[in-house]
C-alpha cells in the first residue's frame, strides 16, 4: 500500500457534458513505468492532466502518494512533475534562467554545476545562454526534460514523450526513464509509438471509449492492432 503512487477509483471527466473518461480505476506502484496508448481523442492528455492536478476530475477519487488530489493539492504537487505538450518555458529567459526559475518555485536551488550537467545531458549545453524563444521544437522538449532531471520527483508524467525528438533524443528519454524508475520514481506516459516504449515500459494500457484496459507487455513488441 505504501508503495502505491497513483490510486484512482472510478475517475470520470466531462468537458461541458462531453464525457471523456468513465469510471476509470487503476493503480501505479513506485519504480514502474506505465505506457498509455489510445486512439486520437481518446482522452490520454485529459487523464494525464487530471493526474497532474491541472484538471479536477468530474467524479471519483484520486490519491497520489497517499494524498487526495482535491483535498491536499499542494502536497501532491510537490511530488510530481509534468512534461506536457506545452514546454512551460518563458521565451525571454535563456535556458539556464528557465531551469532556475522552475526549480526555484519548487523550492529547489540547483548549483550552476547541476544546471550545466543537466543541460549537457539533454544536449543543449551549447545553447545555455540562448533565449528559449529561439529554440526549435525538439530543443524545447529537451529543455523540459532537463527540468524533470533536476526536479527528481517521485511521480513523472510525460505526454507524447517522444514527439519532436530525434533518435538520440528518444534514446535519452528512455535512459532518463530507466534511471528514474531505478531510483523508485513512478513514470506515467502517453505515446503512440509502442516500439520505442517497449524498452522501458513495465506496464501498458489502452484508453478506449473512456475506459482503461490493461495490455500484456507482449503487445508492445507485437504488431497487431492495439485498438
Amino acid at each position, binding site marked *: 500500500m505504501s508503495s502505491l503512487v497513483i490510486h484512482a477509483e472510478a475517475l470520470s471527466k*466531462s*468537458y*461541458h*457534458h*462531453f*464525457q*471523456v473518461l468513465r469510471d476509470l480505476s487503476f493503480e501505479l506502484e513506485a519504480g514502474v513505468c506505465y505506457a498509455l496508448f489510445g*486512439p*486520437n*481523442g*481518446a482522452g490520454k492528455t485529459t487523464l494525464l492532466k487530471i493526474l497532474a492536478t491541472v484538471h*479536477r476530475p*468530474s467524479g471519483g477519487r484520486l490519491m497520489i502518494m497517499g494524498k487526495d488530489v482535491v483535498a491536499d493539492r499542494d502536497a501532491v504537487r510537490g511530488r510530481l512533475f509534468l512534461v506536457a505538450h506545452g514546454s512551460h518555458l518563458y521565451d525571454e529567459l535563456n535556458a539556464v534562467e528557465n531551469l532556475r526559475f522552475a526549480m526555484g518555485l519548487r523550492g529547489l536551488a540547483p548549483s550552476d554545476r547541476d544546471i550545466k550537467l543537466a543541460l549537457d545531458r539533454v544536449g543543449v549545453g551549447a545553447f545555455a545562454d540562448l533565449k528559449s524563444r529561439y529554440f526549435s521544437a525538439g530543443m524545447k522538449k529537451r529543455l523540459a526534460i532537463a527540468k524533470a532531471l533536476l526536479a527528481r520527483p517521485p511521480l513523472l508524467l510525460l505526454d507524447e514523450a517522444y514527439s519532436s525528438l530525434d533518435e538520440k533524443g528518444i534514446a535519452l528519454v528512455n535512459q532518463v526513464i530507466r534511471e528514474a524508475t531505478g531510483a523508485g520514481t513512478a513514470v506515467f506516459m502517453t505515446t503512440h509509438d509502442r516500439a520505442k516504449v517497449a524498452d522501458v515500459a513495465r506496464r501498458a494500457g489502452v484508453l*478506449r*471509449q*473512456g475506459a482503461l484496459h490493461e495490455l500484456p507487455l507482449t503487445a508492445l513488441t507485437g504488431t497487431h492492432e492495439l485498438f
Partner: protein
Amino acid sequence: MSRFILWLRRYQRWFGLAGGLCMTAGLYLGLVKSPPDYYQGEVVRIMYLHVPLAQTSLFAYATLFICSVWYLWKRDPVVDNAAHAAAGLGVFFTAAALVTGSIWAKPTWNTWWTWDPRLVSFTVLLLILIGYLMLRMFIDEPERQARFAAILAIVGGVDLPIVKFSVEWWRTLHQPLSISPRGVSYSTDMLLPLAIMAVGVSLLFTYMLMVRTQLLYLRQLLEAKKGRLLSKAQL
C-alpha cells in the same frame, strides 16, 4: 433531477400568484386611488414602479452574492444556476429602475441623467452585472464558468458598498444636492400602495428567479444529453 429543482417546481406558482395579486392591487391603488403629489402632480405615480424596481435590483444582487459564496463553498451546480438567473434578472430590474428613474428625472430634474451619487453607484451595479454575464458568455466549460462568475460576484459585492459610500462623500463633501430622491416625503395614502408594490415586485422577482433557475438547469441537462450522444461517436 435535483431535489431543489423539484421543490422550486412545486412552489413557484404560489409566488407567482401572490406577486401578481399584490402588483394588481398596488398598481390600482397607486395609479388610480392615491392622490397626485402636491408638487409633482401625476408624475409622481411613476414612483410606484421606480422604487420597487430599484429595491428589487438590490435584492437581486444580494441573492447573487449569497448564491456565489454558497457555490464556491459547496460547488453545487444548481446554486450556480440560481446565481446566473439572479444576475440575468438583476440586469433586467436594474435597467428597468434606471429607465423609470430617468423618465421620472426628465420632468422633475429637467434632465435624463445627472451625476448624483445614487445614480452613479447604481450604474456601476448595472455594469458589474453586465460584466458578469459577459464573463459567463466567454467561458465554455460550465465548471470554470461558475467558479469565475462567483468570484466576480463576490468581489463586486465587496466593491459596491465602497462605491456607494465613496460617491456619497464625493458629492456631500463639495456641494449638497439641490434635489434629492429622498426629498419626496410619503403620506400614508402613498405609503400603502408603495409597500404593496414593493412586496409584489419582490415576489415577482422571486417567481421569475425560480422559473429561470429551472430553465438554466434544464438547458444544462439538455447539453449533457447532447454531449453523451457525442461521446458515443468516438474515433
